[in-house]
């Protein structure tokens, strides 16, 4: 059925490999930025200020209610105009690449989801943790870095894994803005060889394999983040004693 010679196949595989690296890079950069921004927003929006709350609700509602594809198109097609409006002459000269547009769009969209997760997790943390840190006069930066966030991460992990796998499945969308990623490479190879079935199935399996690997990592991370809880259980101390 296939008319592909081995040499051809190797060539296409190399193209797919390069595409996969770009997809992976896009995904990891976007996730890292979205995570950083999301945590920051999650902390900032703890403020009771009416203005902060209002801005947060509008932001969250807009970016959770609009397809990421539209946000990507907006940053890609409108990016130069937005930069020009913000930085004047200098901004107009910056060319918006599909990669940059994709990273920007995913960061903005998924920071909203991650911030929502963080808010939920911080809410679920016993208030005593904050009061204890304050009573010990621990400075805020250390309090967040060493006391609150490690515990919050444990609570937020399942949600983060969800966001992670969901975002992974949305990264191919950037190929529609012209990024030469895995899916674009697969489409080109499929068109050139007239073997769409093989290439698209292979691409699908790359994504499935990557999620499988990341689920393994997530399990490991969960065990690691749970180590405080486990020790407590093993020590046989009464529940809640160490909380």
């Amino acid at each position, binding site marked *: 059925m296939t008319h592909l010679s081995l040499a051809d196949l190797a060539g296409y595989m190399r193209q797919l490999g390069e595409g996969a690296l770009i997809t992976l890079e896009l995904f990891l950069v976007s996730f890292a930025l979205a995570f950083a921004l999301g945590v920051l927003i999650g902390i900032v929006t703890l403020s009771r200020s009416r203005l902060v709350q209002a801005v947060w*609700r509008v932001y*969250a*509602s*807009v970016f*959770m*209610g*609009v*397809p*990421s*594809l*539209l*946000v990507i*198109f*907006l940053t890609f*097609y*409108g990016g130069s*105009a937005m930069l020009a*409006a913000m930085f004047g002459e200098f901004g107009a000269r910056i060319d918006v690449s599909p990669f940059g547009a994709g990273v920007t769009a995913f960061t903005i969209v998924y920071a909203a*989801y991650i911030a*929502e*997760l963080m808010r*939920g*997790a911080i*809410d*679920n943390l016993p208030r005593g943790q904050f009061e204890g840190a304050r009573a010990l006069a621990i400075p805020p930066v250390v309090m967040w870095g060493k006391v609150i966030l490690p515990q919050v991460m444990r609570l937020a992990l399942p*949600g983060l894994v*969800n966001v992670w796998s*969901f975002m*992974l*499945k*949305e*990264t*191919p*969308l950037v*190929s*529609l803005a012209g990024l030469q990623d895995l*899916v674009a490479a*697969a*489409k080109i190879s*499929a068109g050139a060889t*007239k*073997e*769409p*079935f093989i290439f*698209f*199935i292979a*691409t*699908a399996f790359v*994504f*499935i394999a990557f*999620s*499988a690997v990341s689920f393994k990592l997530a399990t490991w991370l969960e065990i690691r983040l749970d180590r405080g809880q486990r020790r407590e259980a093993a020590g046989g101390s009464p529940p809640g004693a160490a909380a």
Partner: protein
Amino acid sequence: MNGLPIDLDLAWESLPALLDGLKVTAILTALPLLFGLALAFPICFARMSDRRWLAFLAEAFVTFFRGAPLLILLYLVYYGLGQIQALREGPFWILFGSPFGCAIVALSLNHAAYMVEVLRGSLLAVPHGIVEASEALGISRRNVFIWVKMPLAIRYGLKAYQNEVVSFIKGTAIVSVVTITDLTAVANTIFEQTYDPFTPILCAAAFYWAFVNVVRLCFNLWRRWLNRHNTEDAAADAEAPGRVNALRPASDLKQVMP
């Protein structure tokens, strides 16, 4: 460029086209939701079956159609299935020969795979004792399922179902790649004609936002109706933390309902 990035005249002019696009998006949401749900039930039973091979097949289905990005599924159905000679000559070609049919098939399969997991989670959440009690009363398995398990499972799974439906609606935005003129495609066409990067896309985004929030509102009303027997519990539920993924139950509802 003036201060406002939106050209109001253009927005007004393109309103009819955008509404047509919204109609296509709504159809492309409704049909796969229906087919996907219909497909999810048998696959979910297979997944929970005691027969190993059946459960394995169902799990493979779920893994594949959940794990593969929707864009790839769409390409696979649209470009890949045409390759199969038997299919091209068979009666199903009416379905697979049109972009619309392909989009419906791909979206339905994807939604079905997600719904299998939602269903399974909800059914597993039903307390075992209730089912045992029903069996002890001699109620047939089918009736236990329809009258005991499902009503509870719907209540447990409603939030997950809502999240899935909302993200599914947003997912339909990609069908424009197979030449369907949905809301996103209409916005893109207007962009290509006018080179206005903001107005059409922002208008389309507003329509999506409104669509998603109407759906969300319907779910909230549905949840309220399902929980009408214990309104106090429902209120407590809504206040509970851990509302992952964009649920603003209580406040939104209050604004709308007197």
